[in-house]
């Protein structure tokens, strides 16, 4: 029985810090469409149904979470609101347990865009020396993101495919949050980070590069990722899509437009904001979707995927 628990927003004290990195704020400057706006509206007595546009607009990019001086799990609260609006409850999620004594196998879980780019997928898997998941759970993750109930049995069957797995490399950082909820203990790492940890990858970055981090992976794991990427940026001199708070500015390219947000691949405002005022002569992306976004934005500068930095059999 869904409980429609939407608690958490009451902690918001209205400082507005969460709006600073928010892509919806950056594009619309309408407070109601941000996390702070939703929290204030609910505090003021509005029902979730009255803020549906705002709940739908969120990209679940996670940028607002590290922006808080206090600890507020904004993404979780928005996910709960979506689920409540769709009559689903996070408590209905299946729960598994990672077997800590399992062999420690790792698995690459691609998202739809990476799955489509077969050469890049193969190349990434070869570099990482791990198999590609046969079931990438994209329907389950989509249900999680949109707050809808997945097809009967799918959530459980997806978890089953991870039996014996200790570590997942994901192309979509939202999987980190999903796994925290359903398979605590499973190590989930972003594809970009995993590739950058391979020997020789970081040295391929140049001071004249702009490196575009997959923001969900980074922001939802901020305390671990921030020092890692900050070090790389300092050592290589390459610029990154980090703001002054060291939060990754999302391109919005990977988000699920089913939710009704405006970040379609044709919406290039956010990518333009990332590029604005910076000088660089190559762009390195972690997210395949960003290649398309940059193309749509008619960016006239070479774009490579981080996997291509290795130079081996580059597609």
């Amino acid at each position, binding site marked *: 029985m869904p409980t429609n628990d939407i608690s958490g927003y009451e902690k918001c004290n209205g400082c507005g810090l969460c709006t*600073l990195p928010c892509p919806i704020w950056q594009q619309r400057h309408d*407070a109601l469409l941000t996390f702070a706006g939703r929290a*204030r509206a609910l505090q003021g007595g509005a029902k979730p149904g009255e803020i549906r546009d705002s709940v739908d607009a969120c990209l679940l990019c996670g940028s607002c979470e590290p922006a808080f001086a206090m600890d507020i799990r904004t993404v979780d609260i928005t996910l709960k609101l979506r689920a409540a609006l769709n009559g689903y409850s996070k408590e209905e999620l299946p729960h598994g347990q990672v077997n800590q004594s399992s062999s420690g196998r790792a698995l690459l879980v691609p998202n739809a865009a990476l799955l489509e780019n077969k050469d890049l997928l193969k190349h990434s898997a070869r570099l990482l020396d791990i198999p590609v998941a046969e079931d990438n759970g994209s329907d389950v993750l989509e249900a999680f993101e949109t707050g809808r109930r997945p097809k009967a049995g799918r959530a459980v069957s997806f978890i089953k495919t991870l039996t014996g797995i200790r570590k997942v490399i994901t192309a979509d950082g939202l999987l980190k949050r999903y796994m925290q909820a359903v398979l605590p203990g499973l190590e989930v790492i972003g594809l970009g980070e995993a590739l950058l940890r391979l020997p020789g990858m970081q040295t391929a970055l140049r001071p004249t590069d702009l490196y575009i981090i997959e923001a969900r992976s980074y922001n939802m794991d901020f305390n671990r990722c921030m020092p890692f990427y900050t070090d790389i940026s300092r050592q290589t001199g390459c610029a990154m899509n980090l703001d002054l708070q060291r939060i990754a500015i999302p391109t919005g390219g990977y988000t699920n437009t089913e939710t009704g947000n405006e970040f379609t691949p044709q919406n290039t405002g956010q990518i333009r904001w990332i590029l604005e*005022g910076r000088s660089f002569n190559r762009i390195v992306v972690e997210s395949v979707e960003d290649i398309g976004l940059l193309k749509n934005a008619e960016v006239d500068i070479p774009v490579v995927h981080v996997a291509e930095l290795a130079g081996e059999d580059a597609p």
Partner: protein
Amino acid sequence: MKQDEFNTTKLPRGIIPPDPVGPDSLKGVPRQQTNPSRWDGTGWNAFVAELTSRDIMINQSLAGRSVYITDGGGVAMGLPRGVLVARSSEDVATILKAAQKYTVPVSVRGGGLTTEGECISFGGLQLDTRGMSNVLHIDEANLTVRTEAGIYWHSLAEALRRRGLDYISAPLNMTSSVGGTLGVGGIDINSPKFGCSADQAIALKVVTPTGEIVECSERENTELFERVLLGYGQFGVITEATLKIRPFTPITMHYFYYSSLRTAIDDLRFLVEEEAADYLGILTMLDRAINLLVAFDSDEKEREFFSRYKKRISGLGEIGFAIHMAAHYALHPWKAKEALYLLERKRSLLPELSPAAHMHGNKIIDRTVVFSRAVWKFWGDREMVIPDLATSSEKFAEAVERGNEVCRRYFPHYTLYCVGIKLFGSFENRPRYELSCIPPDAQNFGYGCEFEPMLGNHNYSRDHFQSFKNEIYDIGVDMGTSYYRFGGMMKGYIRRAFGDELVDKHLAMKQKADPAMILNPDVIF
């Protein structure tokens, strides 16, 4: 007359009728003054209908209005009847014209970080300026930026930093807007060197209360320029600003510790007036643990400080102060609880002021991020009361000590934040300083002290807060000081603090500029 049977001829100009069920309707229940009365809504529907016919859609939903229910202080509460996120000066002009016609109060909000309810709408229209957040032009050669005024200082910094530039001075909170800050002052820890944010403005685009769009500067429409800067939103809505900017520099920070407030203040004044550092401020942890922050934009300035000024101040370094405090608490073991509080404060606060990701060697890269996050983390409660006193150099130490005494009676823990502010003239050649946070008798430098209780998990009543603020503000009346936050809930002090003559002069100017008195009512007038 029913709420929306509107007839302009029946309404006396300049009177915004209060809702009969207002905060002062509980007869016989004594209360400190808090919220202003809520407007009764006469003419609202006609106002909205006119704007709708001009394609300006007012959001009247509960969700949309609730976003604006309070300000940074979280103590004053008021619900607007409707909200508009303004996208252009033309939007603002259309609204103000209609507001004059229908006598609808319009409260302007940028970051909404006032603490006395100044930006809150009590039943009228809330005009959110943040829809105007574009940086329009950065002139790297002449070091100026033209920006829309709803932008957060932090967002402006994001755009400037990519070009190796920075704004000059802004509040330490990241989410105050350029327009809202120019209207109230804007104090940074580099204000001893650069003055307040309002003094960084070169030119403004302003929509007057009657809806004219006017460009003004020190050369063009000077009177409006001088009225709008530090004008608490009484004389117009700032929609664009040209500001001075500067090359970005990381800063080197040093802390000196004191156990005497008076000595720390004397040293602050000395360093401010000698222009010995680029950044200066006092932050107290306890009455006997006072921190003087001294920072530099350049190594040369830092070297000069250590060779010329360091020996002339009495602050101790961290180790020296630790020994001093250890000796003190060894002799006063019954104060062990205080010692533990201090240790905990030091343990949690100091690392926040030099987080690895924002440091480069011993330099702080993003001072605003570092300080603002610390401010929100350690002082940013759901409710914040920050009464202050703004004084001349001569009166500063006494004012701070008297204010500190009040804090001690009301709260177990509090912080004092003291800064100096460079002035660029007097009331005669800078009329903007008149009826503002700039103290009337200050010369060359003004000083400010904020008294900020640490509320923790205590629940205090609004009356408790108000009594506390009143006692601090009474000191100001007694000593002839000014205040940074004298509007909104503290507006009862305006005549007492500034005198009838000055207030009546400004009231007459306001009535002329804003015949229906609709723009930001109850902030000052």
